[in-house]
């Protein structure tokens, strides 16, 4: 007399493979259905951020910095991207640059706008941050703090390869120079982190952007508005 095996192999295969395939199909359908919407949302979020940090811009073009140190219009080029903003006449009003650095809780990512004409940072938007709610996240909401980035001086020195003054965060209410950031009491680490992120990024990008201003300005004519 045959005794049924304690572990029925075939039903187990049938169940796991069958349900696995069903689940895979459901995920694939959902992924396909939601992908265009998610990509559109991301592009819109980036667009909003670019126009928020470059208040004078009404059109934008994305460039990638290649390994050879050239800006190319972003098709699918590898390399870090920057977003040039243009006004109604197609004139370059500024460049939005992404920068990241360590905050109090985790990496903070910001997008900031650099205006070559004003030689200043003209806007900032925190893209990702896990700073303490109510304290560290004031870097996103504190109006007095954000006021620092309406015109934060990042002019180049005579050689054109380095900033004349390094951006620095000072204690709240102690700002005396246009390249200083008024910190936030109670969010010292987060506000100093923003200063450091901007200082490092501006030191790298401002000279490069000034060197390639013609290339970036031409982007406006290419794309129109």
């Amino acid at each position, binding site marked *: 007399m045959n005794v049924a095996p304690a*572990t*029925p192999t075939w*039903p*187990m295969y*049938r*169940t*796991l493979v069958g*349900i*696995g395939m069903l*689940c895979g199909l*459901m*995920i694939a359908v*959902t*992924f396909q259905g*939601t992908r265009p*919407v*998610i990509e559109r*949302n*991301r592009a819109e*979020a980036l667009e909003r951020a670019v126009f928020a940090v470059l208040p004078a811009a009404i059109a934008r073009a994305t460039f990638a910095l290649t390994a050879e140190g050239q800006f190319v219009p972003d098709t699918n080029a590898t390399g870090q991207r920057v977003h040039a903003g243009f006004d109604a006449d197609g004139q370059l009003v500024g460049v939005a640059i992404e920068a990241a650095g360590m905050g109090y809780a985790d990496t903070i990512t910001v997008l900031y706008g650099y205006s070559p004409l004003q030689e200043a940072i003209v806007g900032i938007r925190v893209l*990702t941050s896990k700073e*303490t*709610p*109510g*304290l560290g996240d004031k870097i996103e909401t504190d109006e007095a703090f954000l006021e620092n980035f309406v015109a934060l001086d990042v002019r180049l020195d005579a050689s054109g390869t380095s900033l004349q003054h390094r951006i620095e965060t000072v204690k709240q209410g102690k700002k005396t120079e246009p390249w200083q950031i008024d910190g936030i009491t109670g969010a010292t680490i987060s506000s100093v982190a923003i200063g450091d992120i901007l200082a490092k990024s501006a030191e790298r990008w401002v000279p490069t952007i000034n060197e390639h201003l013609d290339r970036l300005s031409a982007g406006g004519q290419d794309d129109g508005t």
Partner: protein
Amino acid sequence: MTARNRQPVMATDEFIKGLWRENPVFVQVLGMCPVLAVSNTALNALAMGLATTFVMLMSNLLVSTLRNFIPKQVRIATYILIIATFVTIVDYAIEAISLDLHKSLGAFISLIVVNCLILGRAEAFASKNRVGHAVLDALGMGIGFTLALLCLGGVREVLGDGALFGVALFPDAFEPWIVMILPSGGFFTLAGWLLVINFIKQRKEANAAGAQEITG
């Protein structure tokens, strides 16, 4: 006729039990990870509650439908597979609905997979009951879970941020209790609610016992 009449009463009971008598948060104390972590604002609480309800509803539905085909040796693996699928679907859906919401819920959407409440309902209920009852059970438990999360999220947002669903409730002079939106605030609020609910339950029991003594 009596059997037919009794059926709907029992079915409603499957739905109602999750709301109060067997509430997943306040009575069973299950799924504490999202309860404590994502209840810092009412909107986050609502979104997490609805996402969990959807996953529980769909997994209960599928588990109950397939309950006679799933060998018991691989049942847990199968349930996890089914739950993980619906969590992935919810993850995509939330990202498509709102990037900001997706950002604020963060990793906790994916972590719905390991919410013991969902696996618990699949194993303890859906795998042993018909589809209709399993769906009602999931809806009741899901709504109970959502309401409990809202109870926590509402209190924490009002005290910690002076707002409810992002609408400011107090004049600017109100100093928010920041501790309430920090992780420790989750524990305080949960403890407060457990205290209130257990107080009400005990009083009800004492009253019922008192009434029995009088009638007896």
